[in-house]
């Protein structure tokens, strides 16, 4: 298994290098820069700024310096926020997004897996149709609509929860559900279809024929194998949800990391664009590795040698 992980880490580094290189050059190709403003700066001041942030250097040199700093885990200063480095931005934003994301994922698993399970076990029953309808709504209603609806309903009309903001546990509830709706629906549908496939397998029939209790058959034999696709899905979705959602964080006014993925591009905040992209790619490939390793434990057909 050590050799497997070693090879995977090597390919991960390659992926991250490719992603950061492409992002770097694409970003530099967008018209406009961090100091493009309606009140155009006098050329002298622009020169001073470019000197300060070393934007006057040739592109290859900027790229080389960036990679060099990246190796030392120094993501550079933000162009927009004077007092912040990109490391600060991630250090402050990520815990917020992650807290919300973990809650959203827990919600998704707690609701999604049981709904999918019940649907599969009682196929074509009312509860199957009911939960699959909700799952369909969950994957198809965009989060901005849900978020706006939640704020209006619970924040203004019913006045039982804060209309956005951050600081107390009450602030977490609405955004976590809004963020978790999509994965909930997806997990429910995934669990259902995979469970339907598994319960028709021979080994499940064998287990039943051995006279095992239905509950043992369902949980020990069927569900354990049926969740493998869910685990696969959990890798990328964990990376996506924990690094924050622009839409949910914006509508709920949450000081997370998600907003920076989008606003940094509007601001041409080069270092923040690079920093958030690299951070997300590292997280994503790492989660995929975790999933691959997890297969070894839950799927008896997979061995690392």
């Amino acid at each position, binding site marked *: 298994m050590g050799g497997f992980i070693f090879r995977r880490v090597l390919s991960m580094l390659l992926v991250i290098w490719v992603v950061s290189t492409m992002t770097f050059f694409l970003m530099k190709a*967008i*018209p*406009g*820069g961090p*100091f*493009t*403003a*309606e*009140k*155009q*700066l*006098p050329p*002298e*001041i622009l020169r*001073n*700024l470019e*000197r*300060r942030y070393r934007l006057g250097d040739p592109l290859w040199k900027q790229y080389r310096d960036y990679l060099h700093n990246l190796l030392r885990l120094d993501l550079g200063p933000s162009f*927009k*926020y*004077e*007092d*912040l480095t990109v490391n*600060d*931005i991630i250090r*402050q*934003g990520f815990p917020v997004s992650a807290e919300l994301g973990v809650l959203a994922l*827990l*919600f998704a698993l*707690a*609701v999604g897996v*049981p709904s999918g399970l019940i649907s599969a076990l009682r196929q074509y029953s009312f509860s199957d149709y009911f939960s699959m309808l909700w799952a369909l709504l969950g994957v198809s209603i965009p989060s901005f609509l849900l978020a*706006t609806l939640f*704020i*209006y309903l619970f*924040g*203004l009309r019913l*006045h039982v*929860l*804060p*209309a*956005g*903001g*951050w*600081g*107390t*546990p*009450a*602030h*977490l*509830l609405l955004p976590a559900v809004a963020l978790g709706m999509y994965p909930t629906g997806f997990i429910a549908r995934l669990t259902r279809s995979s469970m339907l496939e598994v319960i028709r397998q021979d080994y499940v029939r064998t287990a039943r024929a051995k006279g095992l209790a239905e509950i043992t058959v369902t949980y020990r034999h069927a569900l354990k194998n049926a969740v493998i696709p869910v685990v696969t899905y959990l890798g990328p979705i964990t990376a996506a949800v924990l690094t924050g959602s622009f839409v949910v964080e*914006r*509508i*709920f*006014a949450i*000081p*997370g990391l998600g*907003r920076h993925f989008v606003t940094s591009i*509007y601001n*041409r905040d080069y270092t923040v664009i690079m920093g958030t992209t690299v951070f997300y790619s590292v997280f994503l490939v790492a989660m995929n590795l975790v999933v691959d390793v997890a297969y070894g434990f839950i799927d008896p057909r997979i061995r690392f040698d």
Partner: protein
Amino acid sequence: MHRLVVVALVMTMALAPATWAQPSASQVLRWNVGTDFETLDPAKSTGIPEATVIYLLYEGLTQRDPQGRLVPGMAERWDVSKDGLTWTFYLRAAKWSNGQLVSAGDFEFAWKRALDPALAADYAYQLYYLKNGKAYNTGRIKDVSQVGVIAKDARTLVVTLESPTPFFGDLLSFHTLMPVPKTVVTGNPAWAGKPETFVGNGPFVMKEWTRQNRVVLERNPNYWDAKSIKLQRIEFSMIEAESTALVQYEAGQLDGSSNVPVADIPRLLKTGDFKAMPYIGTYYYLFNTTHKPLDDARVRRALAFAINRTLITARITRAGEKPANAFVPSGIVVNGTDFRQAGGPLMPVYDPALAKKLLAEAGYPNGEGFPTLTILYNTSQRHKTIAEAIQEMWRQNLGVKVNLTNQEWKVYLQTRSQHNFDIARAGWIGDYRDPKTFLDMFITGSSFNEGLWSNKAYDRLVDATTKTADQAVRMKAFHEAEKIFVQDMPLAPIYFYVQPILYKNYVQGLATDPTGPPLLRNVWIEGH
């Protein structure tokens, strides 16, 4: 697991101290500025949200009273020499929030720091009025002692200007010219980034700054005029989504907000929550005068007069904007006279018959043979709606067909600065209260003059205003220059902005700076 999570969620709800639901205590203001601050260092800051807070944390030599009049701030009084070049300020005995005295040396240090090329401050040009200010900032001279500001003693500041600048008194209250505590800043240049290290001389001090979330200010007991400050505490939130800010406002979580969703303005006007505050700004369509047939003033005038401005302000913008009848907006008061009122209307707000006649004279009767031009605007629903309205007005009134194209903000700015457009939507909010802030943008060679219009008589008139401190002479020249400008129509002014703002009726004493942010210094809460 399912049930456990539900229990956990219910418990978090029950245990949550419902601080968000508490009404504002007495003399606490909860205000949304709409975004996090790029910096609260007065020399480096550029935006309106930052200025909203900086004007509470620092005080310049002068300040604005709630009526917008210039009143003494850190300077008790000042003299101006006969030639208008030397200004001497006599400082009051005021203290920084750490108890140190605010000295003339702090001003000298702050201004030279803002001009330091190494600091690369965006707004350093606000100090180009100082003798050698520009030369030092652009590296033409290295010797900082030649810059025209010196602390004669701890309480006397002597400023020498490059040329007579009668509106210099106005600039003194601008944030780039705020003092900074020399001893603190030399030790820690990032002092303004954290409440623990923050030192200011304004009526409030910073108590908390959670990035992207909120800034909390409290009354500064060391402020020289602390007894006139009624608010105990100001809590700024940074909600970017206007609709969320509005819901929080209506749910009682906010007392006011600097951003308002446009779609809700008519409703909020009726409830009295929305206020259209004065703003010295003009929304306009810039013509590229090097593109045929826009090089012909008759064509530009025809296009300008064929725009039904009242329709745009009454149906689209709907916040109380005024249809433009000239370029310089109202609100610039010099020696007691409003520049716009004195100049009067310089053009009709709508005259389709005249427009049609002018276009025919230029050789395009009923728009025949007129090439298809393109209107460029930055991506936004409002600009799109206005462009569509104007597109239709030109088609109906002139028989002229135009295309619309939108670009993301910075791409659009670059296209504009490369003169790569026919007609571009633009807008301008004055930097200070003098017609110069509008009219010197369009002198030949100015970087703001992106339509490449050039008129020698205009250039001479604008230049003449920098040679004298006599306001009567200056205003006369500005009026003449503006007449030439509107006559030649290098741009079509569309409407004069108002500043949209939202606050509850128990918020008293609020004023706005017509060139910038809401002024919260004198606010108090009453009847809540």
